[in-house]
């Protein structure tokens, strides 16, 4: 019998390939959220230190000032600053950004030292900058502070935008005493 009828092979191939492509699109849509993306991180080598602090805890004064130095290899944009008034508590939870009186911004709970990563490695931001009036509002009294924690922040490019990265690994703590 010579007259065999059937689907053309080309049509068969096209159909099969089309089905595979459609199925792969479904699988891709389902799995694409599981593709890991790079996280927003602060580069290793970011480091700061505090020196020359002056903490006056008298009832009619109650202010704090210090020099912040960039000891790392990357410039920073600012910092988060927290304090503790309980020597038994290992984590500082009083947000001192509410008491900031230095120039510049306290935005979103952080102290920004300008519009970008302005504190270059090896530079200091002195007493005139990092000043905090602990008597001002909000009215929640801080009490006598026993510890200070500073976490530097830095602008990094993430997904095509400049985002503020919290450099938690570069956190520093110092014990405070009235002077």
């Amino acid at each position, binding site marked *: 019998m010579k007259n065999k009828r059937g689907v053309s092979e080309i049509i068969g191939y096209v159909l099969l390939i089309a089905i595979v492509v459609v199925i792969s699109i479904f699988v891709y849509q389902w799995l694409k959220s599981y593709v890991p993306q790079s996280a927003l991180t602060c580069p290793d080598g970011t480091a700061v230190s505090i020196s020359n602090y002056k903490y006056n805890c008298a009832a009619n004064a109650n202010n704090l000032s210090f020099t912040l130095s960039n000891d790392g290899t990357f410039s920073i944009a600012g910092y988060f600053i927290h304090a503790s008034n309980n020597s038994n*508590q290992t984590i500082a939870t009083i947000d001192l950004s509410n008491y900031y009186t230095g120039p510049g911004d306290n935005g979103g*709970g952080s102290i920004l030292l300008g519009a970008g990563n302005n504190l270059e490695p090896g530079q200091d931001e002195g007493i005139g900058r990092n000043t905090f009036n602990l008597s001002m509002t909000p009215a929640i009294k801080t009490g006598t502070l026993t510890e200070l924690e500073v976490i530097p922040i830095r602008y990094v490019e993430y997904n095509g935008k400049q985002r503020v990265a919290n450099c938690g690994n570069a956190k520093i703590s110092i014990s405070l005493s009235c002077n």
Partner: protein
Amino acid sequence: MKKKGVSPIIATVLLIGLVIALGTIVFIWFRSFTQEAVTKFSGENVELVCGDVQFEASYTNGNLAISNTGNVPIYNFSVKIDSGNGQYTTQDLNDLTGSWPKVGLRAGGVFSGNVQTSGAVQLILIPILRGSISSGDEKSYTCGDRYGQTISV
């Protein structure tokens, strides 16, 4: 002998249609076993974001202190309270304390609040993140136990 049967073209179309229909049924059935993906940031599944969460916590004299030292906002915590005899109870932190911020703890944020846990020997804090689902609504996701942090009471 005249053999009757379906035309090969029709048979092929029927077979392909049957395969597509069966595949769709299997796909819909399989989807019922998987949760709707909750994504965060630029479409990354929230399960992967749990690994980027960093925080510190301590418990002293009834006061729980938490510091978000990472770059992932933490919406809430699931607190497993270990009573020491193999028994656990689980509650969300915003139910244990009235002072947990409604929007959660942003990157760099700190929290201090009174949490009473009578009889507990340790607490396990497991972060809860907030992300988006395909409809655009927000949904919470509790990270796995391995992302929790144990603190002594």
